[in-house]
């Protein structure tokens, strides 16, 4: 929850304010120490919203074109990104990870032994059935089906497609690898998404349709598992579109990354 001051400061930071309001804010900035600190806090809050993809399309554009004008603010955004990653990493490290063997053990210790045994038998039957199907129908390379030596994961955030912005680097060692791209979703919820991945020359190397978001501890993402052999050493752009009610698509976000081999 932000302070009440934030509601008047936020449009000022985004350059969306009338002249008379601007005058009042700026005079207060010069004379009121607490108000000045509120503005500094509001800058941090706005940066965090931007990094979390919570800004509307218009606000994001104003943020990039009006707010991010000085090296000092660029530094603050870079720092904010590092802080976001750090706190997310620490949260992941401290979250207890349930071990796979604890589930049946916990279940079988339940009072109803007959129900437990029946369910255990059903699970075994299911595992056998899935295995038989897997042997009969080898898995294809799909966005939901990794089938390679190792998985290289990269989290991509929108809003850094500007020329000169920093770029996430993905290192590929084998064509058998799977590259898992986690596209952090901007604000605005769509039922389905479309993703196109283009080379630096604009050539399409992969397209995904009817994709749905996944909720991970860090937020909502589109998760793509892609074979490494579609990527050469190059800069790539992933274009995300959201499906509207009339089944058309609108641009939602853009992400850049660099593949090295």
């Amino acid at each position, binding site marked *: *929850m*932000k*302070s009440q001051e934030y509601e008047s400061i936020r449009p*000022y*930071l985004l*350059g969306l304010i009338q002249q008379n309001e601007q005058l009042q804010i*700026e*005079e207060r*900035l*010069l*004379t009121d120490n607490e108000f*000045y*600190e509120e*503005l*500094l*806090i509001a800058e*941090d809050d706005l940066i*965090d919203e931007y990094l*979390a993809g*919570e800004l509307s399309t218009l606000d994001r554009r104003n943020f990039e074109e*009006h707010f*991010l*004008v*000085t*090296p*000092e*603010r*660029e*530094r*603050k955004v*870079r*720092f904010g990104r*590092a*802080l*976001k*990653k*750090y*706190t997310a990493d*620490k*949260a992941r490290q401290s979250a207890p990870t349930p071990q796979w063997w604890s589930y049946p053990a916990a279940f079988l210790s339940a009072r109803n032994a007959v129900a437990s045994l029946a369910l255990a038998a059903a699970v075994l039957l299911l595992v056998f059935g899935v295995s038989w199907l897997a042997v009969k129908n080898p898995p294809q390379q799909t966005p939901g089906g990794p089938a390679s030596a190792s998985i290289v994961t990269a989290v991509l955030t929108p809003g850094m497609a*500007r*020329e*000169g*912005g*920093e*770029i*996430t*680097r993905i290192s590929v060692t084998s064509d058998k690898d799977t590259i898992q791209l986690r596209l952090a979703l901007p604000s605005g919820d769509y039922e389905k998404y479309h993703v196109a991945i283009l080379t630096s020359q604009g050539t399409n190397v992969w397209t995904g349709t009817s994709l749905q978001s996944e909720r991970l501890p860090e*937020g909502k993402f589109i998760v793509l598992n892609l074979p490494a052999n579609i990527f050469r050493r190059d800069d790539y752009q992933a274009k995300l579109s959201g499906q509207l009610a009339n089944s058309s698509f609108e641009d939602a976000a853009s992400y850049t990354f660099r593949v090295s081999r």
Partner: protein
Amino acid sequence: MKKEWSLTHENFDALLLWLDPNREQAGQKYEKIRLRLIKIFTCRGCFESEDLADETINRVAKRLKDIADEFEGDRSLYFYGVASKVYLEYVRKKPAPSPPPPRRDSDEVELEYRCLERCMERLTSDNRQLVLQYYQEEKRAKIDHRKRLAESLGIALNALRIRAHRIRLTLLECVQQCLQEQQAW
């Protein structure tokens, strides 16, 4: 931005005296006004915000002889009036668009992250925990989480915001210093 008049030592002393008869207090007021002017020019979208703030200060110092005895009220507001004129001139000159930020590779990103790790370790345990707790969650979950955090600390939500911000500022300065030290090697 082209500067047509430079601030001499004498002019600077006169300016400080005008701000406050106590030189130390005057120095603090000068720094405060300068930082606030830089912030205002930045918020107006000016890439050369430091130069514009210095030009504003130069002009005030230049006019001091004419206004020193007559001006009454908060001195910083006089600076604001001059700053508004400096800004209008700046806009009329149609300055070149700000250059794009330099591209950073993953090594620099990694270096900044490592600096942050070091700086986090330098915080007190309480401050470190506050930062980790405060910056968890996003959107609606973040709001509820921070309310609970404030309650657990026995402080108002706004006090928590201010405390987190000040720790963040400490971390930012620490990281900047760390990066300068690392890049000097």
